[in-house]
């Protein structure tokens, strides 16, 4: 109990966040090498897999470049809201951090669901889903606006009195957990874990193009959100990864901008302003349905 309520400093929180962020990347790279060796042993290692994986890490670099440009503004918005509009003061303790991680995970569920249900948001998130492979490098396959949408879903936490550094730490914890799920190496975990937590099996379903798996398993850490809100699907049939239409490229720049390039093409060719508005607002499946109708 004392450990949970022991007061921490801002420096402690920041240090912890940077420590997790930096060292986890090293661990992830180690796991990636193990995965590649496993594919090699199973004679499933291909040039396309290698190219796709390299492209994934390059998109991470492009994403980090954009994040560096907006980081101060992003953090500044959290501090502005926290300093001026917070309802209560929550102390900097492990207790607060744990509560914040649960709430950040819930916020992540809704952000993730939004990314799949809004045309403008999907244009960046589709990059992450566009790989035909599924390994830890895919977790680092980012789109150009991936930094933008979390802001709106995590900002309420600042209003609730969570210090911005704690919110950023919680974001990192959720992301780091998610990263570990991008693997085919782990099949299924013990039943109690599969029941409560998001697992590689649940997340493979999320990345699937199989019809029964579409728009399922949005969870970050806790799969209970999907079970609660009716978006859960269990992994049964073999998963086919990717998006339609296929990107069919290992060029990191083509991949990185593929979502918005497609969206801009659709906007350019749209028959009306109403149609353009709907392209931005409605789920991506709406655009596909309209295209199918126009072909008939």
């Amino acid at each position, binding site marked *: 109990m004392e450990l949970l309520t022991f*007061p921490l400093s801002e420096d402690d929180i920041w240090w912890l966040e940077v420590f997790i962020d930096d060292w986890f990347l090293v661990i992830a790279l180690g796991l990636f090498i193990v995965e590649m060796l496993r594919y090699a042993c199973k004679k499933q290692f291909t040039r396309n897999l290698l190219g796709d994986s390299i492209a994934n890490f390059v998109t991470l670099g492009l994403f980090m470049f954009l994040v560096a440009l907006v980081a101060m503004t992003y953090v500044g918005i959290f501090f502005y809201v926290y300093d001026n509009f917070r309802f*209560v003061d929550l*102390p900097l303790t492990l207790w607060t951090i744990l*509560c914040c991680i649960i709430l950040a995970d819930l916020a992540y569920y809704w952000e993730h669901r939004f990314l799949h249900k809004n045309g403008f948001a999907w244009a960046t998130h589709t990059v992450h889903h566009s790989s035909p492979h599924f390994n830890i490098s895919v977790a680092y396959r980012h789109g150009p606006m991936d930094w933008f949408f979390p802001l709106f879903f995590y900002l309420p936490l600042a209003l609730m009195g969570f210090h911005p550094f704690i919110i950023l730490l919680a974001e990192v914890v959720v992301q780091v957990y998610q990263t570990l799920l991008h693997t085919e190496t782990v099949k299924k975990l013990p039943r109690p874990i599969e029941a409560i937590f998001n697992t590689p099996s649940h997340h493979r379903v999320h990345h699937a193009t199989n019809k029964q798996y579409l728009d399922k398993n949005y969870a970050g850490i806790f799969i209970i959100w999907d079970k*609660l*809100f009716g978006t859960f699907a269990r992994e049964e049939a073999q998963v086919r990864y990717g998006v339609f239409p296929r990107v069919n490229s290992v060029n990191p720049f083509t991949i990185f901008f593929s979502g918005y390039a497609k969206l801009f093409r659709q906007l350019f060719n749209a028959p009306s302003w109403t149609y353009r508005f709907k392209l931005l607002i409605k789920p991506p499946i709406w655009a596909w349905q309209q295209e199918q109708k126009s072909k008939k």
Partner: protein
Amino acid sequence: MKLTNSLVITGIIAISVWGVALLQPMPVQALSSAHPHSTTQKQSPLEAARSNVVTEEQNPLQVTLDTLIISGNTATLPTDKVQRLWQEFNTNTALNSQLIKQPLAVYVVYKNFSANFEQATVTIGYSIDALSSADDTVTLDAARYEQLLSRKKHSVQDIALAWQEIDYRRPIERVVEIHYLSDHSAITSSELLVDYGE
């Protein structure tokens, strides 16, 4: 489940988890009054027995405060801007990390008043008894004080009104607010003392 229902349940979960976060003992928390201020913070149940204020039975308005050394946040600022210092005190995580036990009270010391009493040097802090170490300390030598508010639960308005009872025609050495605290971060009682330095 329908989207609306899902959002309602999300709201309920969010408020519940937030409530759990609020359940923990708060290291420091401030309230504000019209002129002076009051605070909340966590500490031990022993506080009542450990006040260092001795009331003199002969004159209920006179009390003696033993020598007291406090550490916290100090600033010279307009007295109507003291809330700013409270905010600094509330977010002084370095001070909180030095707590070795729950403090019994928060002390607010006003001294070096300007001629028009609009500015003063204010210190908000804990007795160093509760701290493992203290860098910047303020020592209050043992002195006799006039008690403007006896130690009991007072509203913010009570405290503000008590400030108006200070005799500003007399030389004021210092004014001390003491806010005694419960285990659950609540103010159990407050006291307002003035040392006229005569």
